[in-house]
Structure formats: structure tokens, C-alpha cells
């Protein structure tokens, strides 16, 4: 090892320390951005150090340099453009796409290494074992993440795609992948083994994610994020690079924890989600508006009067708000109410929106000050003092049935919306949430149902409130 190698090794170590510190700074909204910038700066330094290393080694061909810079330029521009242009509501899809890119890169890297080194006899198990795992996990993540992004974007049906023998197919594919992996370890020169492994993993990614409903996609994306981290750590073993091992393991661990937190908040087990076939995704407006018995339907003017003469209003935004991209209109309505002297706050369920914390991002984008956004534990004791709880496109997370045992959502943490003095629910229809059960909140005598698309409802209500207070 030359002096330069040693110096660069320390630079990589410093970068790894900065990744950990960066994640640590994400503990608090006040320091989170600094944390991300620190992490990005460390990454930039690490990339520069790699360039220095390559120049010093001087083994890279001119074509190699061109290929590398062209790839970096094209990849960076695509990533930069996508990151700048994306709508905040479409953010989970983009994270999934970046995740597919990372997983794909990790798999390609191992394929490349094994193909190049196959001729020489230097491939020991300590390279081929992590290499095979890297290809398996990376390729599976690549197609799986693409399907997950497609489902959220609507390119792929968000309903579970189930066909006869789907589980048997998955089992066969997993077996084929395992056989390919073992074969590759035993005989690293075998192109057939490599192709079998890659093909089985790619198809397994598709068939694993297709049967999972759109509502579970956030958990799946988070799980695949953890997979990519693990694949990158395996790539670190293949290349003997501690920086990749550290960063990959960090992400693998964080993704795992985050996946568990999300699944817990939705009262689902990760195994249930991955086995799939449950959860029909987004609630389809199949039931006619106001059709159900015992439901009190209210008009925009009724709601506006209730809101304008309330002292305290708690807004409960849900997925319907995000889907209708109505966060800006909601911000405007809340501002109109605040100017009228109404105390407005927002109750944020841990899984409101598409992912934990997604609703906070959407409302932040609509310039809602984040001190008004209250976590579930913080806001639940305040519901009895609220004159109106305004539920916008949220369903299962407000269903009082969760407090009783014996149904699909038993034990799921919910917002105590039914304890408010009155409740207004804005929803397109009486359709079910992903749990597929009736929401008892809607038939509560103090609940008024306002059937409308969230965006249209916000605009109408804001107009009605402003007319009232003018």
C-alpha cells in the first residue's frame, strides 16, 4: 500500500464518519438540512479522492476515462433534473427510482468484477459469495423498485396483481436464484450461472412487488432501500472497500428500522406485506355518494359556518389530500380561518400521506408553519376541546373501530377525531380505505359528510368562509 492509498483510505473513513454525523443531525428539523449537506460534501470529497486514486494508479485506459466521465455526466444530469423537476407529491416514486438506480449499479458492479476476473483463478469465495449476494439483491431491487415506482405513478395497476400459482412461481424463482448463486460461487467462470442468477433475480423483483397493493408501496420502497444498502455493502466486500461496506451497512440498518416503524404504524407485519395479495391500494370511488344509511350529508355553506364560528379547528389531512394535490388550497383555507381568529392546528398521523413524514413535507411545501403540525400523541388530548375536526381524505387512521379487538385495524394507533365536539369529513365517496372496512366515524351523529374532491372542496370552502366573514 502506497502512502497515497493510505491517505485516501483515511479520507474515505472521514467521509463515512460524516455520513453517520449527517444522519445524526437529521434528528431534528432545525439541523436536518445541515446534516444532509454534510453528507453530500463528504460524498463529493470521496468521489474526488477516488479520481485522484485512479489518476495515481494510472491503470485506467483513455476509453475507461471517457466511459467513466460520460456515465457520470449523464447520470448526474438525469438525477439532478429529476430531483429538481419532481412534484413533492410524486417524491416517493422518485426515491424508488433512485433506489432502483443504486441497486442496479451495485449489481452491475459485481457482474463486471466477476466477468473481468473470471479468466484468472484469483476469485476466492470471499469475493464470489458477497458478489453473488450483491447480484441477487441488487437485481431484485432494481426491478422491484421500478414496479413500486410505476404503481405509485399509475403506470402499473396499483391493485395487487395476483395470478394462480403466484406464490409457487416466486418460490421457484427464489430457488433458481439460489441455485444460480451457489453455482456461481462454485464455478465463477460460468456464464450460464451468472445469467441464471441475474435473470431469476430480475424476474423475482417483478413478481414479488406486483402482488402488493399500492397502499403498502411506501413500506416496500423502504424495504427495497434497505436491500440496496445491503447490496452496496456486499459490493464493498467484493471490491475490498471499507467506505462502501460502512455506508451500505448504515443504509441497510436504517432502512430496516424505518420499514419496521412504518409497518407498525399501519398495524401490518412486514411478512404480511411481502407475502402480499392484501390491501387493494387506493380506495376506489365505487359506492355512490351519500348512499349509505345513517350518514348526514352537509353542504359547503354548512361547513363554512361551522368552521368560521369555531374557536378551535383541528385539521386531519390524509392520503386523499395528497392524491388531489390540494395542500396549497388547504393552506389558503387555514390562513383564511386564522385571519378570522380561529385557532387552527393539524393532526398528523405517523403514516399520513404516502410515507411517514410525507404529509409534513407536503404541508411544508404549502407554507404551513411546522409548529402547527402536531404528532398523534401530542394532538390526541386536544380533540375534546376542538369545536370542529376537519378530516380531509383520511379514512382508516380515524376509525374508532381500531380501539376494539376483532377487526382488520384493531390495535392500530388512530387519531381521536370522534372525541371532537363535531366532525366534518371531506371525501370523494363512502369508499373504503385500504383496510377495506366501514368507518364508524362516518355514521356518528355528530359527523357531517361533505362529498367532494379535496382540491375542489378546499377552494369552495375558502370562498364560502371569506364570504361569511367579509
Amino acid at each position: 500500500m502506497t502512502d497515497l492509498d493510505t491517505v485516501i483510505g483515511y479520507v474515505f473513513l472521514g467521509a463515512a464518519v460524516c455520513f453517520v454525523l449527517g444522519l445524526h443531525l437529521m434528528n431534528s428539523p432545525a439541523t436536518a438540512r445541515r446534516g444532509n449537506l454534510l453528507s453530500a460534501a463528504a460524498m463529493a470529497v470521496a468521489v474526488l479522492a477516488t479520481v485522484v486514486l485512479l489518476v495515481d494508479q494510472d491503470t485506467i485506459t483513455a476509453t475507461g476515462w471517457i466511459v467513466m466521465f460520460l456515465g457520470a455526466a449523464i447520470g448526474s444530469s438525469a438525477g439532478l433534473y429529476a430531483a429538481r423537476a419532481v412534484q413533492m407529491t410524486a417524491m416517493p416514486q422518485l426515491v424508488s427510482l433512485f433506489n432502483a438506480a443504486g441497486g442496479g449499479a451495485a449489481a452491475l458492479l459485481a457482474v463486471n468484477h466477476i466477468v473481468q476476473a473470471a479468466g484468472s483463478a484469483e476469485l476466492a469465495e470471499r469475493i464470489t459469495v458477497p458478489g453473488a449476494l450483491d447480484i441477487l439483491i441488487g437485481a431484485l431491487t432494481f426491478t422491484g423498485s421500478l414496479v413500486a415506482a410505476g404503481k405509485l405513478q399509475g403506470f402499473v395497476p396499483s391493485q395487487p396483481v395476483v395470478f394462480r400459482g403466484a406464490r409457487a412461481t416466486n418460490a421457484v424463482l427464489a430457488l433458481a436464484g439460489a441455485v444460480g448463486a451457489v453455482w456461481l460461487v462454485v464455478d465463477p467462470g460460468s456464464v450460464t450461472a451468472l445469467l441464471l442468477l441475474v435473470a431469476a433475480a430480475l424476474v423475482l423483483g417483478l413478481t414479488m412487488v406486483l402482488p402488493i397493493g399500492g397502499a403498502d408501496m411506501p413500506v416496500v420502497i423502504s424495504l427495497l432501500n434497505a436491500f440496496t444498502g445491503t447490496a452496496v455493502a456486499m459490493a464493498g466486500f467484493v471490491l475490498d472497500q471499507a467506505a462502501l461496506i460502512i455506508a451500505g451497512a448504515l443504509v441497510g440498518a436504517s432502512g430496516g428500522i424505518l420499514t419496521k416503524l412504518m409497518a407498525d404504524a399501519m398495524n401490518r407485519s412486514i411478512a404480511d406485506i411481502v407475502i402480499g395479495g392484501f390491501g387493494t391500494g387506493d380506495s376506489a370511488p365505487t359506492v355512490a355518494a351519500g348512499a349509505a344509511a345513517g350518514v348526514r350529508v352537509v353542504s359547503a355553506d354548512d361547513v363554512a359556518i361551522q368552521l368560521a364560528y369555531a374557536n378551535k379547528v383541528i385539521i386531519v389531512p390524509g392520503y386523499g389530500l395528497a392524491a388531489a394535490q390540494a395542500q396549497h388550497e388547504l393552506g389558503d383555507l387555514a390562513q383564511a380561518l386564522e385571519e378570522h381568529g380561529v385557532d387552527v392546528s393539524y393532526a398528523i398521523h405517523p403514516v399520513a400521506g404516502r410515507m411517514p413524514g410525507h404529509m409534513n413535507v407536503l404541508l411544508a411545501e404549502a407554507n404551513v408553519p411546522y409548529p402547527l403540525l402536531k404528532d398523534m400523541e401530542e394532538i390526541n388530548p386536544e380533540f375534546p376541546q376542538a369545536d370542529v375536526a376537519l378530516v380531509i381524505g383520511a379514512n382508516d387512521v380515524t376509525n374508532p373501530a381500531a380501539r376494539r379487538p376483532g377487526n382488520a385495524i384493531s390495535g392500530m394507533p388512530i387519531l381521536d377525531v370522534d372525541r371532537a365536539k363535531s366532525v366534518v369529513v371531506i371525501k370523494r365517496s363512502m369508499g373504503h380505505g385500504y383496510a377495506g372496512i366501514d368507518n364508524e366515524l362516518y355514521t356518528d351523529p355528530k359527523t357531517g359528510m361533505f362529498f367532494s374532491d379535496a382540491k375542489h372542496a378546499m377552494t369552495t370552502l375558502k370562498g364560502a368562509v371569506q364570504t361569511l366573514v367579509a
Partner: protein
Amino acid sequence: MDLLGAVTVFVLSVLVGVEVISKVPATLHTPLMSGANSIHGIVVIGAMLISATADDLVGYLLAFAAVALGAANMVGGYVVTDRMLNMFRARPAGRPGSDEERSS
């Protein structure tokens, strides 16, 4: 680095990851997922190292694809995370209730 050393680094990093992540409040989980996503963009370094050893067409094509995907992951991930976190910090003037107090 011998295998034992590499495995030691891996295991300790997993433990550090669990310890650092489990303290993050739910409100920051989405930016966190995106931030973690950009950290595994470090795969681009591996892709660069591998492109240094490529010397045939297959090798160049694989290296090109790996570097491009890794770079997209890294650059895009950090930029979109920053966009998100920047929104958390935005404090519109003149809105009531926008005081700095908040503990999560």
C-alpha cells in the same frame, strides 16, 4: 483488509446505523429515507474503481451503466433531500403561530 476485519466493519456499521436512526422523529422519516437513499449512492465510487479495470466492450458498457446509475442515485438523492428539508425550514413572514418552539 482481511475478511474478519471487513466483517467487523460491517457488523459495527449496522449497529451504528440502528443506533443513529432509531432516534429520528417520525416527521423526518421521509427525508431520512431519501437521505439514506442518497448515501448508498456511494456505489458510484465502486463503479468508478471497476471502470478502471475494464478493457473490453462488455466491461466498458457495464462500467458506463454502473457509473451512470450510481451518479443518478447520488446526485438526485442529495438534491431532492435538500429540497424537502429546505421546505421544512421555510418560515413565511406574518403567519401566526410560526414561532420556533417545537419539540418532537
